[in-house]
């Protein structure tokens, strides 16, 4: 019978396997290099054409543009949310007339570009000036900011109605049946059982809709509202400095990314109870 007299001496760890230099790695490095070169180039360009007086002159106007964009989006999303309730109701009701009206509304606003809708309101409603003056609304509709708010509200209401409808219809049938088995009235069942579950489904699309509105709101610059895009265009037309567009891009990116991360945080917070 043989047995080991001595232990084997400890061996040094095996050499780390050489990672193969694959094509995808080469491509990844090259693309990262392109991004790096682009950002360095933009940085150098910004440093090169940097001037404190331009910053002092146009910095505050960029901030005021940012404020205009944010207030416009905030007000229109809230008003659109309120307006979306009857539209979503119309989409789900059994009444043929109501549901066709709601369908037509949603189809129109989702099927045409926001900018065409804005032109229709801002330039088109000018044709009805006498009527609007007669009912005292002309002073509102000659203001570009109000026209933008009006268009955005109608537009986002259509999208939000679809989000709401989709979310409510995504709640399984068994939940309705369970509520009626418990003898709950329809109204209580809707507000206490269906809606809370629907809102969790709707949370992410609502966030996307707000982001889409922030991005879409850039078109108001065309109808002479000085939001972030409008201020950028004005600054560019005065200085011919391409930097202005880059600053606007940075500001828009910050807005969208902050909102996206905030929304992701809210979602994880609100769906804690669904985690397993």
């Amino acid at each position, binding site marked *: 019978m043989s047995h080991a007299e001595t232990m084997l001496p400890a061996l040094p760890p095996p050499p780390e396997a050489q990672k193969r230099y694959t094509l995808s790695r080469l491509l990844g490095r090259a693309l*990262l290099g392109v991004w790096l070169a682009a950002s360095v180039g933009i940085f150098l360009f910004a440093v090169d054409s940097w001037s404190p007086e331009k910053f002092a002159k146009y910095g505050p106007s960029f901030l005021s543009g940012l404020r205009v964009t944010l207030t416009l989006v905030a007000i229109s999303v809230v008003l659109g949310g309120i307006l979306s309730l009857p539209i979503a109701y119309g989409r789900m009701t059994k009444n043929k007339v109501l549901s066709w009206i709601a369908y037509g509304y949603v189809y129109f606003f989702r*099927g*045409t570009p926001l900018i*065409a809708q804005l032109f229709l309101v801002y330039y*088109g409603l*000018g044709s009805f000036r006498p009527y609007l003056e007669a009912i005292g609304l002309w002073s509102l509709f000659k203001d570009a900011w109000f026209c933008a708010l009006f268009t955005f509200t109608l537009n986002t209401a259509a999208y939000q109605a679809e989000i709401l409808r989709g979310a409510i219809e995504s709640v399984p049938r068994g939940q309705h049946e369970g509520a009626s088995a418990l003898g709950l009235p329809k109204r209580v069942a809707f507000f206490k059982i269906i809606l809370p579950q629907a809102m969790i489904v709707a949370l992410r699309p609502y966030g996307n809709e707000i982001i889409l509105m922030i991005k879409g*709101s850039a078109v108001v610059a065309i109808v002479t509202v000085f939001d972030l895009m409008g201020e950028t265009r004005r600054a560019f037309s005065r200085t011919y400095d391409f930097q202005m567009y880059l600053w606007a891009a940075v500001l828009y990116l910050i807005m969208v*990314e902050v909102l996206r991360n905030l929304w992701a945080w809210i979602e994880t917070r609100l769906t804690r109870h669904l985690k397993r």
Partner: protein
Amino acid sequence: MQAAFAALSSIVSWFASMIDPICGPIGIFRLFAQDTLLACGDTGWGDEIAQGFMITVSLAICTLPIGLLLGFFIAVAKQSEEKSLRLAVNIYTTLFRGLPELLTLFIVYYGLQILAQQAMAAVGFEGPVEINAFVAGMIALSFVFSAYCSEVLLSAFKAIPQGQYEAGDALGLHRGKTMRLIILPQLVRIALPGLGNLWMALLKDTALVSIIGLSDILRQTGIAARVTKNAFEFFSIACLLFLILAMLSSLVFSALERWTKRSEAAR
């Protein structure tokens, strides 16, 4: 040779004018609006609007294949094991999904102009350089479309089980062949509804190129509105034309969906 080309192009343009749905021999404006502001020819705005309609449609159709192809490769790159590649394409999608389409368009249009100007100055040509608005619009819209498209395709890729790739390996298929024969047909089936939504968004985004001076539907109707002072009517027509495009494309997409699902068992 020159004459042959000229003859060919005149035949093509004659054919295009014959099937023109707006101002052709059986176009809607020609048939129903000949005595109004929408008449085709010198008395009305019908032919101008028809031209804009064609430009909008051709811009969207030219953008689609570039965006799809770019989006496909980005979606493949997003699943790579290589970290640097994933990072690079994630920067791309974050950038173009976060920027407003209008701003992207301006940056591409003016940025290209500045770059071209500098390049021309470097070879000794001084003077104004103009970038074609159609090309700038096509590039900007392809960037945006491909960024969104990659997300749609990525989620479709994730819906295809690993076993399908393994089956391809087991059959001894080359990687490219596995992709072409096994993965792609399923991918198209899964991604088609998402791609349909993106196509609708693309159609609507083409309206933005009117701002950099391309004479699409919105610009032509805008000019007509300014000249005739009938703004409401003309912008309504613009909206109507976009609605018609949306309806046509939803018809096409539902037909496509039926076609891709033809081999599935009826449920």
